[in-house]
């Protein structure tokens, strides 16, 4: 089997294994993982998008890790891209598009089953029929990918950890918003601002996505508060509504249950 990763999945892997020295390298050594040139470009440009809580050392460690991602094939070709464009009437020349075209070409060249790993829900919906009709393989999420490795690897400790690390990536971001709001709270006493901030903190602590996505930012609020609230609202909408990380988290919980049930064949 061959795995083609899109930018979001590659970034997730770099982040969740940032504190481990060899595991990611071993995955790359033991499995056929590949990327398109476009995806590598997107990884470079978005390596720290939505990550506000990382310190300089952590950023440097992730940047260094980036080197293990490289284009290991020269199978990207115009023919499969033109064909894909025609068949699904797709005009966005993004990572998902080039990855799907590469999947088509590789499946024919290598006569192998291709997994396209992406957490982009619209892309999954857009390309799934194409993968099915052309018997290319399957489109899976980063969580599916990690669970596949869990099934295949004899040493599974890190795979189990990775599920929680993936969740933790987002919980740390939410925590860093909480700390900013707590700092702002200490500036006000018995004013309207205090009630607004306290409500915001409550919704962050309870991770109330439904309320956070619709924060009402009143024009009378001081600019410091408006700025922070806007950032929180954007973060929640971008990841948990449009990017739908919630689905990813639900997948993690389902797989953790399966792991606990010990449904795993070992040689």
């Amino acid at each position: 089997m061959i795995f083609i990763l899109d930018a979001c999945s590659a970034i997730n892997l770099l982040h969740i294994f940032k504190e481990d020295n060899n595991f990611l390298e071993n995955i790359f050594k033991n499995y056929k993982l590949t990327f398109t040139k476009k995806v590598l470009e997107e990884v470079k440009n978005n390596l720290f998008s939505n990550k506000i809580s990382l310190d300089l050392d952590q950023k440097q460690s992730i940047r260094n890790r980036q080197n293990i991602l490289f284009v290991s094939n020269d199978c990207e070709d115009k023919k499969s891209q033109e064909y894909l464009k025609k068949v699904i009437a797709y005009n966005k020349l993004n990572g998902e598009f080039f990855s799907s075209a590469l999947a088509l070409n590789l499946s024919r060249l290598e006569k192998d089953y291709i997994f396209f790993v992406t957490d982009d829900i619209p892309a999954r919906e857009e390309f799934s029929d194409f993968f099915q009709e052309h018997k290319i393989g399957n489109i899976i999420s980063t969580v599916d990918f990690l669970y596949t490795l869990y099934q295949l690897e004899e040493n599974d400790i890190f795979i189990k950890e990775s599920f929680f690390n993936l969740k933790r990536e987002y919980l740390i971001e939410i925590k860093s918003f909480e700390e900013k709001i707590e700092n702002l709270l200490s500036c006000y006493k018995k004013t309207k601002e205090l009630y607004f901030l306290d409500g915001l903190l409550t919704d962050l602590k309870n991770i109330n996505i439904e309320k956070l996505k619709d924060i009402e930012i009143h024009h009378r609020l001081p600019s410091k508060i408006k700025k922070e609230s806007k950032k929180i609202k954007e973060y929640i909408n971008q990841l948990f509504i449009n990017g739908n990380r919630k689905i990813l988290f639900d997948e993690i919980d389902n797989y953790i249950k399966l792991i606990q049930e010990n449904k795993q064949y070992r040689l």
Partner: protein
Amino acid sequence: MINLYEDYYLNDIPFNIVPDNTKNIIWAGMDKIKKEFERTIQKSLINSSSKILVNYGSYGSGKTHSAEYFSSEKNLKFVKNKKVKSFLFVFPKDTKNITEYMFQSFLSIYGIDNLIYDLKDIDSNIDFDKLLKKFSNDEEIRNILLAIINIEDKNDIKRILYNQIDQSILYKYNLMKRVEGVVIIKIFAIIMKILTYKKYDLIIFWIDEFEDITTLNRQEVNKMTSFLRDLIDNIPQKMLTYLNFVPTTFTDLDSLYSYFIGSALERRITNGVEFDVLTLPEIKIYVKELFEFYRIEEFNNKNPYFPIEERVLDIIYDLIPSELTIGKLNNILQELFEDAIIDDVKIIDEAYFNQNRYELYSLK
């Protein structure tokens, strides 16, 4: 503008959302929760095996307030003929050394002078040296505690306990070990055992904001669970630890147990008190009882919620029944009060509430 005393018959606004440590902490309403805590504490006094209980509920549901309330000695007097001591810790922000953080927080809450006084005061019929031998076979550990009890220089005591000593101090007091690493937990354990030998029948630790464990990496999580395991292994009797936890859609109680707590602690830890959103009768009892603490003697109105009309409480409940925690209710009523005072409103009725509710930030 409204005069709180003359117009509302109150000596302060009761719903203070900023914790005020100078005031006596009071308990209003939430009778079920209070009774449950009293029951778990009483049960721990009957069955003295040390245990860990997880109190859970959304943010603002009263967990921290409960911990603060039951950490005050006067509020533990419901236990007849028994002495209980309680300590409240906030989850460590810097997790490099959790055991050290907990030990030093313990020292600062107890006060080193008070601790030494209590340790010396345990049993006048027996030498402290002999007492120590009852609880530890480790001579080096006993020496550290003996030194702490006998040294007159308070700064040196502090330096030893906080591990801020150089070789000369070790030499001066003939100590072989520093208070660091495994020594801390051993010292901690002996102190607890001595305190529960005759002085206290139960010691309670509350760790607030335990949900922060979900943002730690595996190594840091292990440090926290090792600390809890060491605590329960080394102090097998008369110790009750409460962990306050906010379950979220991303980390529920099941994942706390299965992933963060792990198998080493799983058998020693159980659910404690559940904090839920309030029901309408609970809201009314809470507001009524809270007002009673702040009423001035001249109050003789039949409405126990005065200046709020009962109907306003009904409407607030109907607006957000699924998220009305005690914290949320306090915020709404405090903000409403502040607005009413400025607007010179003598009675907070349905009309005034409806007219102002869109201006209430705490209701958004």
